[in-house]
């Protein structure tokens, strides 16, 4: 896996919100903190020189507290937010260079996103929500319903096709969100805190299901979270963000046993190496067992 060409390669990515965005790159601001820049220029540095690479088929977790820039990073990867500087190479192509039609094609075929608050269409039943991505592509009704039904089955929601989102629990709505993303058969899934709004029991079950799904599908997943346990359990590799920059990147074991600085050390204080091993082993078991529990 390490020898493979990375699927996503982010190089020197910056995102600055505000009118004076370009002045942030002047030499005098190079050594200043994010708060200082915000005070002096009124510009918010959401991403600061972020570089990372994600290999095909791995779960790459980006972890950080709120305001760390992790959601902005996720939105940059699908260009819901346009980065100020840098490059995002997707199978070698810089998606920041894409014109409108190439971008549309990229979003339709290569990448899909799962949202924290699901982002479902309240006026459509489950089947039409899941088929949305295919409908946008112009696929005819029977074909897209067939693909949508398969995706609904994959997330264990068979029988719920004609229900409306408001009639379902949060966990089930998020399964619809995941099914919608899977239905277009993307190369990469961006998941922006997909389980943060769920209660702990459901969250754990959804994590197990995601691991088991990944065991079958081998999608490349960029997973955003603020929960360290979730990061350790799901991530093949984990990047920790603070104030728009990545402070450490590595395997869960590395992060816990060799924290790069005090900030990370403080973060992982309550987790021991033994616990990491246990969490990973449990995840491993789910992946190989490959069983899907229904909620």
């Amino acid at each position: 896996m390490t020898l493979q060409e990375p699927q996503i390669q982010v190089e020197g990515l910056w995102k600055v919100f505000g009118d004076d965005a370009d002045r942030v790159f002047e030499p005098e601001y190079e050594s200043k903190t994010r708060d200082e820049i915000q005070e002096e220029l009124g510009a918010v540095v959401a991403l600061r020189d972020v570089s990372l690479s994600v290999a095909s088929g791995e779960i790459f977790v980006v972890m950080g507290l709120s305001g760390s820039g992790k959601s902005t990073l996720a939105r940059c990867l699908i260009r819901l937010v346009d980065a100020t500087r840098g490059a995002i190479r997707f199978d070698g192509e810089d998606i920041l260079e894409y014109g409108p039609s190439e971008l549309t094609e990229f979003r339709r075929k290569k990448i899909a996103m799962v949202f924290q608050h699901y982002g479902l269409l309240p006026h459509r039943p489950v089947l039409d929500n899941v088929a949305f991505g295919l409908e946008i592509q112009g696929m005819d009704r029977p074909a897209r319903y067939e693909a949508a039904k398969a995706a609904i089955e994959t997330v264990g929601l068979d029988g719920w096709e004609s229900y409306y989102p408001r009639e379902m629990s949060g966990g089930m709505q998020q399964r619809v969100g995941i099914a919608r993303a899977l239905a277009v058969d993307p190369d990469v899934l961006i998941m922006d805190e997909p389980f943060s709004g769920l209660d702990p029991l459901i969250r754990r079950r959804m994590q197990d299901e995601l691991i088991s799904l990944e065991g079958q599908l081998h999608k490349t997943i960029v997973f955003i979270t603020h929960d360290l346990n979730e990061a350790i359990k799901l991530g093949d590799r984990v990047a920790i963000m603070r104030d728009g920059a990545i402070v450490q990147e590595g395997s869960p074991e590395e992060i816990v046993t060799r924290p790069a600085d005090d900030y990370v050390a403080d973060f992982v204080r309550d987790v021991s190496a033994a616990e990491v091993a246990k969490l990973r082993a449990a995840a491993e078991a789910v992946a190989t067992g490959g069983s899907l529990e229904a909620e």
Partner: protein
Amino acid sequence: MVGAAGTQESEGDPDNTSLAAGLRSLASGHPWLSGTAVVIVVLVASLLIWGPQMDFPTTVSQTEQPAADGRTVVLDQTIREVTGDAIDDGFDWLTEEGDFLFDGVSDATAWLLVRIEDGLKWLPWVAVIAGLALLSFGVGRWKLMAFTTLALLYLGFMGLWSNAIDTIALIVVAVAVSLAIGLPLGVLGARNRLADNLMRPILDAMQTMPSFVYLLPGILFFGLGKPAGIFATVIYAVPPVIRLTNLGIRQVSPEVVEAALAFGSSPRQVLLKVQIPMALPTIMAGINQTTLMALAMVTIASMVAAGGLGDDVLRALQKNQSGNGVIAGLAIVFLAIIIDRITQSIAAENRERLTAG
């Protein structure tokens, strides 16, 4: 007096500067104090110069005209006259240059109105009442159906049927035109900040302008008759549907719009598959308001010979017949309630379907 004050200031009299400095320091602490001081100075100065009960200088120029008896008469031309004349000229120009357009619009509206009126009058009244009762039952069950039936029977037995149908035809056409103009403008305002900023003050003005004012350009462009009434009604009734379409689209959850974009939706797909369906309850509320305002204006439009129930009210007014006025007024109220309840029930159904659980 003014000159004296001026020289004093320019000389930089030491007392004066210290006073100014004192005022300034006072002002920095209490901004409203310096404001009050300025007002007092202006008040005293103008009283001293012009005395009490001064008039606005409204005269632009004076022309002397020889009167019949050999004396000359001085005629004042006021700012208001000049401005009014300029606006008149503008309308005259528009009427002349836009003649072909206004004629076309006028003919088209008249044609459409006649079709609707003839169609509704051709149907036996029993059929019309049964149809509307059925529609009421469909959206509002027994209560609405009972009300609709009784109200329509009232119209018929009071001999107001034909005029009520004229009014309905006017409303249908005016609302159709309002929606054809208002929905696209609402969408434009929701998606384009510049358009929104331009439209907002115009809509404010349209809604505060006394509705009678719209009758005049209506007559100028279209002459007396139904098209002039439709014109005035559309201008009066179009703001709510523009505003609420705009608002409804803005209120759509940004995450749902993001999700639609993330799956590669074009702006058009976002609009048609996400924004408009989700904004529908709000848009329906706008259509409801537009319809009711159209009814109100259609009544007033009888003053430009647009016909309908407004005619009955107007005639009662001119002949000082209170009884007839109340009878025709009630007929309009009943029509309004029927229209309001039916459109609101449809809107409520939409809202219910959309409320997220």
